[in-house]
Structures are given as C-alpha cells and as structure tokens.
C-alpha cells in the first residue's frame, strides 16, 4: 500500500494562527528573522506533537529500535550467528536461557539475528525513502511550480507509475539487477515516489499563488530563488510527514522482496530471516520461535513509523487541519 490510500483519521487539533510579528529588538537581519520564525514554528509543532498519544507511543517504539540497531553488537554477540563459530548451538532449538529466541537450521541464535537484522531493515527503509522523497519532491515541485506542458507530462508519468503494480515492477527490477542491498534500496526508491509527487504538487500549486510569492516575483526574484526560498520551505513540512509514512512502506517492501528471495544474502534482514524460516519448513513443523521474532519486529517498527506519520500529518497537512 502507498501513502494516499490510507489516511490519518479524525480531526487534528487546530494550531494557533501563525505569528508573523517579530519583536522590534530582534530585528537584526532578514536571515535571522526567518530562522527565528522557523524555530518558533518548529517549537509549536513539537508542542502539538507531544499532545498526540499515538505520535508519542510511535516515537517511543522507534527510539527503542534505533538504540537496538545502534548498539547491536553490545546487545547480542555476533559470534552466535556465525555458523562457523563454536558459539552457535544445535539446530532447531526452542527458546532457552542460552538462546532466548531459540536457534535456526544452522544453530544460529535467532535473538542475535533479529537484533542485527534491525540495522539492515532500518538502513534500507531510510535510504530507500530518501531516494523516493528526492524523486517525488522534485517531480512534484517542478510540475506544480512550472505548470503547462511540463506539468501535464510529469503528472501523466506519475499516474502511469501509480498504475504499475509496484511489487511486480520491483521484482522484475531486482531480479534483473541482482541481489544486493544497494539494489534493493534503489528498486524500492524508484517504485515508491508517485504518491509523494502528487501530494507535493498539490501543495506547490497552492503556495505558488500566494501573494507573497507573487510579490517576490514582481520584485524580480528568479525561479530558482522562488523555488528554494519560498516553495520548498512551505512544502517541506508536508514532505517530512510523508517521508515518515514512506519509511514504513519501504520497510514492508524490503521485507516482501527479501522474503521472495531477492534480498542480499550477506545482509540478513527480518525479511531474509522469514525467507530462511519458511524455506526450511518452519511453518509446517510448528517452529513458532523462528517466525515470531522477525515478524513482530517488522510489525512494531512499521506500526511505529505509521503512528508517527499520522500524528505529524494531522499537524502539518493543511487539508486535515481544516476539518
């Protein structure tokens, strides 16, 4: 699923009207004023965000997983997941005091693999999202700002990409290009941008017609100046909310591709673990300890990103704010 098919629910709190007046004593330089205003806007958003229970719960889960990923070698001994090392146990062992989540077909610790898998899944999710955002934002801003035939062309392309069944496309690309982490990232990045492009374009269209943009243009501002100084800062927050939702989708996509055997065999993610487990018949032989940890980790991380994304979207998306 992509952003747009599922949306935040319920009306968000109505934030206070933007305070544009700057105290006289702070009037130092235009740049300072702009930064002071942005800082205040950020603080206001953070304040509203803290009130969202869903957003804070999601953030807590995320912080937990990021810490686990950062300190993975300290949390779980890497030697217990190296089949050549004596630290591994017997194959197919249920959870015990030595191997908290049991062992797999090679006697590797499932606990250690789950902990270290967080690094791969988070890396892929975040990097793929960066690519997707860059493409989506670029196409959206160009289409919305320039209009005309460029807009028609770019939006047609976006619609076409929306129609393409992304999983089939990703499968084709990944099998053509080979099995490696960077290719998985690239494939997810270039199959998940159309939703963003549409949202960004809509926002750019509305920002473009605002009086201050027209005024800047009348004063002789170049297109580059208008885009980087006026359009981008206004579209930015929305891109950010969308980014967080896209990370969730990117992680799910990585899981699916890896489960289908297209993942990097050297970088074991949660999806790859599920692929190993399923191929080794863990489902029909009832080895729940092999299937639950990676699966639950995916559910929790995706849930957390989705909850943060919804909470932010309710604050930052002008369409939802009005309700």
């Amino acid at each position, binding site marked *: *699923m*992509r952003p747009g*098919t*599922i*949306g935040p*629910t319920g009306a968000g709190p109505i934030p206070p009207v933007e305070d544009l007046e700057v105290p006289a004593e702070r009037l130092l330089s235009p740049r300072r004023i702009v930064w002071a205003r942005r800082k205040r806007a950020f603080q206001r958003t953070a304040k509203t965000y803290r009130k969202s229970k869903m957003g804070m719960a999601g953030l807590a889960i995320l912080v937990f997983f990021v810490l686990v990923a950062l300190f993975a070698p300290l949390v779980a001994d890497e030697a217990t997941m190296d089949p050549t090392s004596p630290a591994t146990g017997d194959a197919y062992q249920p959870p015990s005091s030595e191997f908290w989540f049991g062992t797999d077909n090679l006697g590797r610790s499932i606990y250690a693999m789950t902990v270290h898998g967080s690094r791969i899944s988070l890396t892929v999710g975040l990097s793929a999202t960066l690519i997707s955002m860059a493409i989506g934002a670029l196409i959206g801003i160009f289409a919305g700002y320039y209009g005309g035939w460029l807009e028609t062309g770019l939006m047609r392309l976006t*619609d*076409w990409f*929306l*129609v*393409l*069944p*992304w*999983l*089939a*496309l990703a*499968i*084709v*690309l990944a*099998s*053509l*290009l080979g099995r490696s982490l960077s290719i998985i990232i690239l494939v997810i990045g270039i199959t998940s941008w159309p939703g963003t492009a549409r949202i960004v374009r809509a926002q750019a269209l509305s920002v473009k017609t605002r009086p201050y943009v027209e005024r800047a243009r009348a004063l002789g501002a170049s297109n580059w100046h208008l885009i980087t100084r006026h359009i981008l800062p206004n579209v930015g927050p929305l891109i950010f909310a969308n980014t967080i939702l896209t990370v*969730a989708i990117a992680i*799910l996509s990585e*899981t*699916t591709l890896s*489960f*289908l*055997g*297209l993942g990097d065999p050297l970088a074991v993610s949660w*999806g790859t673990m*599920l692929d190993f*487990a*399923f191929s080794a018949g*863990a*489902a*029909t*032989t*009832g080895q*729940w300890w092999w*299937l639950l940890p990676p*699966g639950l980790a*995916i*559910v*929790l991380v*995706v*849930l957390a990103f*989705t*909850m943060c994304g919804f909470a932010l979207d309710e604050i930052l998306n002008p369409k939802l704010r009005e309700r």
Partner: protein
Amino acid sequence: MGTRGYLLGKVAQAFLTLLFVLCFNFFLFRVMPGDPAALLLRGTSAFNPENVEQVKKDLGLDKPLPQQFLTYMADTARLNFGESFFLRGKPVNEVIGDKIWPTVLLVGTSTIASIALGLLIGIWSGWRRGSALDYGSLTFTLFVYAMPEFWFGILVLMAFGGGVGPFPAIFPTGGYETPGADLTGLSHATDVLNHMVMPFFVLTVAYLGEYALIMRNSLTDVMADDFVTTARAKGVREKEVLWRHVVPNALLPTWTLTMLSLGFVFGGAITIEYVFSWPGLGWLTVQAIEAKDFALLQALFLIFSAAVIIANFIADITYMYLDPRVRAA
C-alpha cells in the same frame, strides 16, 4: 454526447496507459545493464560466447532497436511471449494460461469478500464514530496495515495447517486440490474449497481494514454536508438518512480508491500464493524469480499491469453509473 465523450476519453486513457506499460516493458529488458542474452544463460552450463550469440539471434536482439520494437509489439498482440526457460521451452502463454484460473478464483472471491465486509464495517464505524466498534476497527486496520500479509499467512498456515500448541491442523497445508485423488464434480469442488479456506481467509482479512478505513473517512466527510442536516430536519428516519443520503454519496470516492487498490491485491497474491503453494500466477512469479526466467517474468509483469489498467477502466465506467453528474455533463 457527454456520456460518449466520457467513455471515449476513458478508453483513450486506458489505451495510452497500456501503451506506456508495453514500451516500459520493452525497454526494461533491453536498457538494463548487461546483455539480456548473457543474462538468460548466466549460471547455466551453456554459458559461452557462441551460445550467447545464438540466443541473441533467436531473440532477434541483433536487429536494430526500432525493428525489435515492432516485432515485440506484433508478438505481444498475438499473445506470443516466447518460450519459458525453466519449463523446458514450453510457450509462455500456455504456462500462464494454466495458472490464470486459480488466481482469478482466489483473488476474485477474496477481493469481493473483503470489499463487501470492509465497506460494511466502514459504514458502521463511520456512522457510529467514536464507538467501541469504531476504535476496534481502527486499531485492527492499523495493525493489519503494519503486518506483512505473507507473515500473517505463515502464522495461519502454522496454526491450522501444521498445527501447533492448542491449534488443530484442520486444513491442508497447501496446493489447489488433493494430488492424485482424481475427484470429480461436487467432491472435487469441496476439495478445492477446503484447500482455499486459508489463503482466502488471509487475503480477505489482509485487505479488509483498508477498505473499511477508506469508507469510514469518506462517510465522515459526507456526514458533515448540509444535505444531511436538511434530511434530518425534514424528519427523514435515521436509517434512511444513512442508506439513501449518506452511503450513496460516500460510495463515490470509495469506489475509485477501492479499484485503485486492486493493483496491490495482485501484489499480495504473489506472496500468499507462494506461502500456500497455490498454483496461480503469483506462485508462478516466485518460481520465475528463482529460475531467472525473464521471458516468463516479462509476460507476468505485463499481465499484472494490464489487470490493474482494466480494473481502473471498469472503475471509471461504473463511476458513470454511480454518479449521475458524469452522465449529465
């Protein structure tokens, strides 16, 4: 005139999209780094320069690009997708033809079930916003959304196919029918149904929440409209307000989104069919990946895309009947 113009516009749009997919498909397998002929042979014992040249000739890859494109279009129009590589040269369209029916049966029925159930739950929770059912269905939706559908499938397979702990193994662990049983008529149908229960259940549940959420949000929007207040002020009974005023209007945006999401149902079918060894297009895709059968993959990609385009086209056509404004315009 309005109706005809609308129809023609939609036909043209579907046609253009199909053309885009065709071009995309053509270039995808030619612009990619590496030689497609070498790719086909890589990892096999037949991988040597002479064979690569031969395969190139067989595939027509030695001809200029425009000519290749014309051949490709003509072949596609005649549904000639070449030969499958891993099934020992069986024509791709025959391989695919055998697998279409199981997929249509499974994906078709579960999609209808999840749309029907999802819309009903959406109507109910949108109408009684803030009720226990509303919160329940929202939580459920969020949870299912975060869950890879194949993981859910594996868990169901483990519980009711393999049997673990307190769960009884009551359903066959996979396949379309009992192999070698040679059943006919009603007993065959029961056998297939018995095999279908788990994948059907998983696919239905995996997509139900999404439809419920779309419907709920659309219903909430419509309920704030003035005509609903007017209807209530006129003394229309609540039940009639819901079913005659709110639901028909809320169905419009829901319908389009629902049809758009069909593209992702096909994606789900790929992993679910694999998990339950359901002999359809999805499982075939996974087998094609494993065997690096690019001719087959290319054809499957085309079929999945065409299915989505057709679903969108049907959505547009039915929209015309749902929304009188389109007809009048």
